[in-house]
């Protein structure tokens, strides 16, 4: 996973790089289903080559937004451009330039992997002369080349998902949309899927737009938008968002807490003394641990560094943990049933 880490760091916020271009851009995008405003005034842009995540609980409007960007649902208001084309006025042009991986499987499991890919290649107008090469390439990217001639019905859930991601990349789209790509997969498989996604990004230079309600997955994104009740409540890189929430905290348990607190304060640290432990606020807690131990001047029994997580960020902006999925109830049954049917 180490290379995965670097991959996501390399191209931090390429949107801000001059001349890199914009892959997805929306202005006040909105959609209502009856009484429910599923998406409200959503405005954001995604730079070319970026991994951009929409983070939010179920029912927050993630899927509806993706569907509008993919021209599957007509925007109720506002505008959106994908790969330079207007989703409402030029849906065909948009569809030719995007790859789609839905929440639910859309493979023909009575065909082999290769046959599924061949079908896709034709429907997305991959020139005949390139089909063979592209199929080989995308299968290699997701490490399924040895299962090429196997029926998809023999695939595990994770393999099928990776094949779908490969298929989404087959026609070299400008933007790959992944709607909850890892939902229902075990942690190990999720990690594999993520390796695939990030490798694709690096090797194919594709922009990736994904939705997720997993905090740890949003960490992989170059930038993310937190969406709640149909509105974006915060946008930024994972680090930016965490910094907005607060600094790192370092908890120290020492042989003599009051003495340690005095020493640290004299050394210029911001300290909150306590009976059991003292808490030091710092910008980069981990790197400071050795200096803190030295400055404490007494024996340090334990150190615990706490960085703000995206959980903290989400809690900060929405007042809730993402785990309690109350938001799902925000959409009445009927609207949700209709959305499910529309899928």
């Amino acid at each position, binding site marked *: 996973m180490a290379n995965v880490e670097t991959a996501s760091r390399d191209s931090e916020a390429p949107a801000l790089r001059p001349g890199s271009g914009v892959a997805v*851009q929306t202005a006040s995008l909105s959609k209502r289903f009856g009484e429910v405003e599923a998406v409200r005034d959503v405005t954001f842009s995604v730079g070319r080559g970026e991994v951009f995540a929409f983070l939010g609980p179920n029912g927050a409007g993630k899927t509806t937004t993706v569907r509008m960007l993919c021209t599957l649902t007509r925007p109720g208001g506002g505008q959106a451009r994908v790969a330079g084309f207007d989703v409402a006025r030029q849906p065909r042009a948009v569809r030719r330039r995007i790859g789609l991986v839905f929440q639910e499987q859309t493979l023909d499991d009575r065909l082999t992997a290769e046959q599924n890919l061949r079908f896709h290649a034709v429907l997305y107008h991959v020139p005949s002369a390139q089909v063979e090469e592209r199929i080989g390439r995308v299968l290699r990217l997701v490490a399924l080349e040895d299962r090429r001639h196997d029926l998809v019905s023999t695939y595990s859930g994770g393999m099928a998902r990776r094949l779908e991601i490969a298929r989404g990349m087959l026609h070299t789209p400008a933007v790959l949309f992944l709607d909850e790509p890892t939902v229902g997969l075990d942690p190990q498989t999720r990690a594999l899927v993520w390796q695939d996604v990030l490798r694709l990004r690096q090797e194919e230079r594709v922009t990736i737009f994904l939705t997720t309600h997993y905090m740890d997955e949003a960490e992989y994104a170059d930038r993310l938008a937190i969406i709640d009740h149909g509105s974006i409540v915060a946008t930024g890189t994972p680090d930016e968002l965490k910094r907005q929430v607060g600094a790192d905290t370092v908890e120290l348990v020492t042989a003599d807490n009051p003495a340690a607190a005095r020493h640290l304060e004299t050394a210029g640290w911001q300290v909150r003394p306590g009976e059991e432990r003292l808490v030091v606020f710092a910008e980069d807690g981990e790197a400071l641990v050795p200096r803190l131990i030295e400055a404490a001047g007494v024996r340090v029994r334990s150190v615990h560094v706490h960085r703000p997580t995206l959980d903290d960020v989400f809690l900060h902006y929405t007042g809730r943990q993402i785990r309690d999925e109350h938001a799902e109830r925000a959409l009445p049954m009927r609207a949700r049933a209709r959305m499910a049917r529309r899928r």
Partner: protein
Amino acid sequence: MTADALKLPGGSLPDERESVGEELRTVGMVWEREAIRFFRTRARILSSFIQPILFLFVLGWGMSSLVGTVAGFDFKKFLFPGIVAMTVLSTAISSAISIVWDREFGFLREMLVAPVSRTALVCGKTLGGASIATVQGTIMLALAPLIGVHLTTLLVVQVIGLELLMAVSLTAFGVFVASHIQRMEGFSVVMQLLLFPMLFLSGALFPLGGLPGWLTVLTRINPLTYAVAPLRHLVFAAQHMPPAAAAKFSSSVTLFGHALSDAACVGITCAFAVVFLVLAVTGFGKPD
């Protein structure tokens, strides 16, 4: 509304369209998928012959004693073309109805979100199902010697042509119906409600002459009726049929008091095919 204030930059170019070549490639690919899936399920191929064969032999022999033989011509020979039509009908409808499965297992979305026209998808699906149905119907011809039906090369070629036309019309009809089925449960209901009435009211199994008025109306709006009559005439024409037998096993279709020629029947079948194709294209994938 803020949307007006927040207009995105960039001109509005016209949308892109698929070229004819791209559309034809799509038709071919959808057709190919139908063929691949068909040949993969050998059990289904075999089982789809069981019912027609059962009808041909059980019903054929059973009724033959009742109907009797006229100058060496019996009910089995009358039934044979009808059984070929039955095979085409059931294969065409069950291929078309696989759309319900495609919907259930998500593959329909893969097709519908692709930058291709619904027309191309429906044409591919229809031609695929129709090809399979034609192959199945033609395989049934192999039973002709057992029934005492004489085949010529010309007859086989003509029958294949007619089967294909009938199969396109019926598959398109099936695609149209299947597009409106949202759930798996609806599938068996539709099969019951469509398949057997269409079969029984088409003249495939018995002459339509003796039916009461209201059933006659149903037979005349049944698209299969106009395919069965010329098919039977084709087969009969290749047999040495005495006039007495031809009179007893009459199978012409009358419409508003006029006996329809085979050409007219073929024309009506073509018209049905076009209408069903148009309906299938407009209904395909909706509501999604």
